[in-house]
Structure formats: C-alpha cells, structure tokens
C-alpha cells in the first residue's frame, strides 16, 4: 500500500495512518495528560477530607462538597474573590486602552524619537519582575500607595508586552482605512477608536486574556504590597491557608478550583472573538 503524500489533500483513512502520525498523536496525548493531571488532582483533592489528602487516588473514596461550603461561607474568600475580580478587570481594561493607544501611535504616526521610545519600552521587557519589585515598593511607600488597590494595580496598568503586541497588529492595518476615515472627517481619536480598534479585535482579545490571567493569578507583588487581610487577592488569600504549623491542602485546592471559574469564562467568551477576528483579518481588500 502506498503511503499518502503530505500534500495529497485527502482525509486520512484507517489503515493508511503513517508511523509519523502515531508518534505525533502519542506526544500530544502525553502532553495533554501532563497538563490536565494537576487540574484533575486539584478537583479531586477539593472533594477529599484533610485526612484523605495524601491518599493519591484520583477518585476520592468518599467525595464530599463540604470544602466548597466551608470556603464559600467564609467571608474572606468572597472578599478576596471580589478583590481579584476588581483588580484583574481594571488592569485589563487599562491595558486594552493604553497599550493599544501607545501601540497605535508607534505604528501609525511618524514623529521624532519614535524608534527610541519604542526601544525604551521594549528594553523594559528584559528586566525581571523580581528586580522591579524594590523600586515599585519604594515608590509606593513614598506616594502612600502601600496596602491599597492602587498600589497593587499601578505596575501593571500599562505593559511593554501589550504595547509591543498592539503595535505589531496595528502595523498590519492598511493605512488606506485610516486615511479614508480622515477624509470622511473623523478626528484622530475617532479614527483609532472607531476604525483601527475593531480591526485589531483578535489582538485585543489575546491581550485581554493574557492580562486578565496574569493579574488573576498574580501573587508576588500583591503579597508584598498588601498587609491588610481584606485587601488580599485570591492567590495571596489562598496562601494563608498554609502556615508554619499546617498546610490545609484540601482548602487550598477548593479555593483554587473556584478560582479557575472566571478564567475559564474569560477564555471561553474571548475565544469566540479571536476566531471571528482571525476571519475578519483574513478578508482580502
């Protein structure tokens, strides 16, 4: 039997599967298992009692939702959940607005120093967060932003990555679209908002997902900048289930399981826009 040529364009049939195909599927399957196993264990542990936590069976002997009831009835958890929601949503909206505005300016306007500004923004990508935490902390202390929502949010309100991503996407928007709007009488802000932004919807969706997830799961900086328990974000709050004497894994896993829900919603909602955006971007002139 002749093997199907890679460019044959025919659907694969049973009995014609190539060895390479089997290898690819095996690797993908192993990769998938590797990624999903911790999540399955997270859900499994959330259904166990404290004494069953180190029993590594995936399906608990006596599954129970008691942990969920305990976590949700604890006022702190809901507070942390709302804190994380507020911070992640605010920072995401801020990034969508400012990153795209700066990206658009760098992509579509000619001005002196444009390249230098772009390089300066890019260079901040090379600095690890751990190095930035000290200046951020000193700045927050001097401006009395410690232990406040603003203190948690300000370092991420605009990012070099987001600016870079948006600049790259805006460069793909044909100038004719913007010039047509200019002739139609729109001002520069209206052109950006009404014409350019809808055309980079896929990039905005991607940026929204990255920013929301990054801020939803942020731990290091919120831990440093907050001291009041009521200002904790969800990851910081969940870590408080662990102390020098004890780590309550079943509670941490229950909180973590609940914390995945908003991220799943964000991804499912925005994924639609990404697909639609790719279709729009594929429309030929």
């Amino acid at each position: 039997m002749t093997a199907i040529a890679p460019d044959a364009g025919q659907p694969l049939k049973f009995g014609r599967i190539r060895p390479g195909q089997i290898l690819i599927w095996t690797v993908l399957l192993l990769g998938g298992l590797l990624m999903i196993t911790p999540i399955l264990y997270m859900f499994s542990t959330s259904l166990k009692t404290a004494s069953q936590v180190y029993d590594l069976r995936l399906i608990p002997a006596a599954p129970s939702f008691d942990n969920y009831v305990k976590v949700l009835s604890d006022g702190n958890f809901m507070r942390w959940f709302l804190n994380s929601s507020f911070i992640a949503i605010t920072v995401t909206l801020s990034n969508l607005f400012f990153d795209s505005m700066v990206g658009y300016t760098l992509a579509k306007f000619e001005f002196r120093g444009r390249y230098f500004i772009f390089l300066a923004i890019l260079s901040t990508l090379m600095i690890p967060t751990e190095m930035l935490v000290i200046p951020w902390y000193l700045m927050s202390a001097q401006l009395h932003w410690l232990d406040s929502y603003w203190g948690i949010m300000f370092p991420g309100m605009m990012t070099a990555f987001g600016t870079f991503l948006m600049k790259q996407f805006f460069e793909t928007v044909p100038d004719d679209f913007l010039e047509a709007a200019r002739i139609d009488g729109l001002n520069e802000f209206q052109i950006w908002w009404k014409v350019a932004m809808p055309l980079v919807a896929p990039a905005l969706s991607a940026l929204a997902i990255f920013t929301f997830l990054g801020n939803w799961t942020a731990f290091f900086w919120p831990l440093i900048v907050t001291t009041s328990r009521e200002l904790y974000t969800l990851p910081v709050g969940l870590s408080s289930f662990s102390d020098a004497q004890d780590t309550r894994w079943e509670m941490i896993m229950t909180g973590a399981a609940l914390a995945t829900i908003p991220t799943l919603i964000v991804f499912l909602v925005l994924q639609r826009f990404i697909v639609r955006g790719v279709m729009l971007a594929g429309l030929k002139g």
Partner: protein
Amino acid sequence: MANIELRGLVKSYGKTTAVHGIDLDIADGEFVVLVGPSGCGKSTTLRMIAGLEDITAGTLKIGGEVVNEREPKQRNIAMVFQNYAIYPHLSVAQNIGFGLYTAKLSKAEKDQRILATAKILGMEDLLKRRPSELSGGQRQRVAIGRAMVRDPVAFLFDEPLSNLDAQLRAQMRIEIKRLHQRLGTTIVYVTHDQIEAMTMADKIVVMRDGRILQVGTPTELYESPVDVFTARFIGSPSMNLVPGKAAGDTLTATGATIAGLDSASASGDVLIGVRPHDLVVGEAGASGLSLSGAVTAVEPLGSETLVHLDIAGTEVIATAPGKLVPKVGSTITAAALPGSLYLFDATTEQSLGRR
C-alpha cells in the same frame, strides 16, 4: 462642484523630490486622469489634493480658495482607494453611512441618503450584508457609495480598478463614467493603465519622474504626442519606433523603405514612429513607409492579428486582417501610409511632428 488649480506644486521627502513643481487646471465637472508608470508622482499629486500629504511648495486651490493648510475633512472632497478601504466590521449601509459620520443630519436623513446612494449604485438589496459577503465589484461600489453620499465637490480615485479582473474592470470603467455623466462632479482619477485613461478621461495628464509631460484630450495625446514616452505610453500595442536618419529632404531607416516623405526641418539621427494599427501587412504603396522582415510571433485577436516582425534587429508590430495569420518564420511586408508616421529627435526624444 469646484475647479481645482495646481500651481508649482512640489512634494519632497527629505532630499528626494517626488513632484517637481507641476501646474494643472482642472475645470469644474471635468474628468481628469493622471496617468504614468509607477513612481511618476501621480498618486502623490492626488494625495496632496486630498490633503493626505503636506505640500512642500506651491499653491493648491479648490473652488478658488487656497487649501494648502486645510485638513482633508475641510476640503469637502471624497476619495476612493485602490483596496476600497471599506471596513470589514461594518455592514454595507454602515460603510456607506460612514461618509456622513460628521454630517449634522438626523438619523432619518442619513438613512434616506444612504438608501438613495445605494439605489444609484444598484445596491439597495445588499445594505445589510458585510463586505466579506460581497464580490470585488460590489465592494468597489460600496467604496464609491461612501464617497458619493457626502455630496463632495470632487471625487479622487486612486487606481480604484487595479484589484479587479479584466472583465469587471471594463464594466466598472463604464459605470464610473456613467456616474460622472449623471453627477457631473469633478473627478481626478489616477491610474497606470492607459486604456482606463483613454476610455474615461475628458483630459489626460501624462506624468513621468514627478513632472507633467503632456496634458490633452485622449485624441490629442494619441494623435500628437510630444515625446517618445507619451507616444509609447498612449495606445495599445505601443507605437513602433525605427531608428533612422534625416538629411536634407530625405528620410532613411535601416531595413525600411521611405518614399514620398521629406524630413522637413529635421536632420541627424531620428526615431520614426508608427502605430501598429497604421502598419498593415500587405504590399507597399507608392509612398509612405514599408518594412520587410521575418515573422517572430503572431497574436490572432479575431478581428485582426498582431504580427511581430524582426526588422534589422528591431522588433516591430504590424496588423493583419483577422483571417490572415502569417506563419512564424516567413518573410512579409507591412506598410504605413503617409500622414501616419511620427518623427522624434533620437537624442532629446522630443516630437518633430508627423509625416
């Protein structure tokens, strides 16, 4: 509607000058086509008229008013772009209505104007569709609709048909011409396609290297080109050029016989031009130009056949009646009558008149 006046218009990008001080008068309601090869400055000139490029020097007047410093939106002109520039996220109605974005009209008035425009373009059934659901020609109509809906003083077209296939291009040429006849609005149209220029224009402006070479009606340009470039650029297939010599009263050319024609004031090296449609396969006449050479290729077009001949190393195209298709490799004679020859100075390439 308005007239447009260009006086000494210059566009420079740093040390590079794209447009070298051009002068042009476009009358109210006139259809003017700027034509020339890529990089000749025709699009830059159009963009200066639109206000999308700053004017380095010179004066631009629209409707008698100097508009050099005015923003595009203040010039009340509309532009149709090569790639249509219609927004994929908006419906046809929203795209057409985009031209009214800043108009101080009620929604009902806007809707009425959108519908009226769509009717003129035969698109009233497509108003709710997205651009992705339209054909190339329909997208082009939407772009024209967006320009029309504002009732501008002039339309600017920047190679609007380049993305269409040959058949649709021919159809859209007629549609744009009809639209001009119906609206009577001034149109400045940029193209590199001389057929578009010839078929649509009231006045053609031939440009090269940022300068205007010749301005005239299509017939004037075809009949009386000022130089070799214009002569070869206008007309399809391009004009044949045979190197020759003018001395005293006689005109001679390598591989050709010229009888009954004098060189008049010309002397020295010349280029003798003859359009393929004037050079007909058959016996030489008593006077005029006759050429004999080997057939290198034939292009039967049905109504006629284009015959490529090798005349002493120069390729020349002649025409033969449709049913006559000479064999490649055979030697044939083609002749042109007196009055159909163009003489050019071989050095300056400027026209020396017709013979």
